[in-house]
């Protein structure tokens, strides 16, 4: 399984990777990107099974990234991992094709529960 982690904070990319390993995804291959544009390029390179993306990022934010991805025909599973999560944001995310929304801070257990429902 190949998981793409997109966040402009290097610290947060590291934490998401750590929590994924704690949640039982230690055998997955992790790929990182620091904004939506880099994330889009990484996703288009192929082989990605799951994308975890921040919302607020420079260059291209998370929702623009998701919309560009879907506009290009990608159906890869996509979830937001973000510090802000208003009702409007969640609605926009779902309408744009996101599967789940994880709010920072998160525990490994909470992360695992959400992903288990998505990835199986």
């Amino acid at each position: 399984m190949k998981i793409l982690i997109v966040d402009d904070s290097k610290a947060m990319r590291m934490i998401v990777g750590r929590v994924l390993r704690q949640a039982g995804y230690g055998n997955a291959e992790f790929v990182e990107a620091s904004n939506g544009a880099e994330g889009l390029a990484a996703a288009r390179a192929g082989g990605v099974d799951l994308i975890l993306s921040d919302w607020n990022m420079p260059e291209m934010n998370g929702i623009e990234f998701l919309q560009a991805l879907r506009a290009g025909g990608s159906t890869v599973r996509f979830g937001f991992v973000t510090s802000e999560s208003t009702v409007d944001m969640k609605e926009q995310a779902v309408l744009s094709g996101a599967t789940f929304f994880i709010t920072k801070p998160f525990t490994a257990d909470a992360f695992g529960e959400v992903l288990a429902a998505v990835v199986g």
Partner: protein
Amino acid sequence: MPASFPVPIQEDIRDLLMDLLGRGTAVDKVPPLVLEDDHSAVIAEYRTDDGSVGAICLVDAEFAIRTAGALTLVPPAAVADNLRKGDLSESLENFREIVNILAQLLNSPKTSHLRLAGVHVVPGDLPDGVSALVANPEFRRDFAVQIEGYGPGRISLLVN
């Protein structure tokens, strides 16, 4: 709309730090943290969507360096070294992430939306709205924090 932005209570700070750092955290109420010229501190400013300063988070250097280290599991010995040198440079990126996430405690459905707008090391220059809020907040809460494996620090939340 209430006059003031919400100010997180002791349990809010404890729960957020525990989840974020993944380790035990104790939080106690203490008297206000006073800025001193011979002791570094860090101020995170939060602004509304129209640019007004609504809240600040003021921490001592110990809090900034220790939480930043705990966030990415920097070895406590390296954190202690930064504390001895008073070196905040390696801590600010991680600290920024912590105070970015903390913004959720300063928001409510009944008040204007606040987001992290900047992080400043003091002593040092501060934007006008920030220094005014430091000097004369509408409301504040001050806490002493103890992070398992990393040690103590101080954090204060001040709002307009």
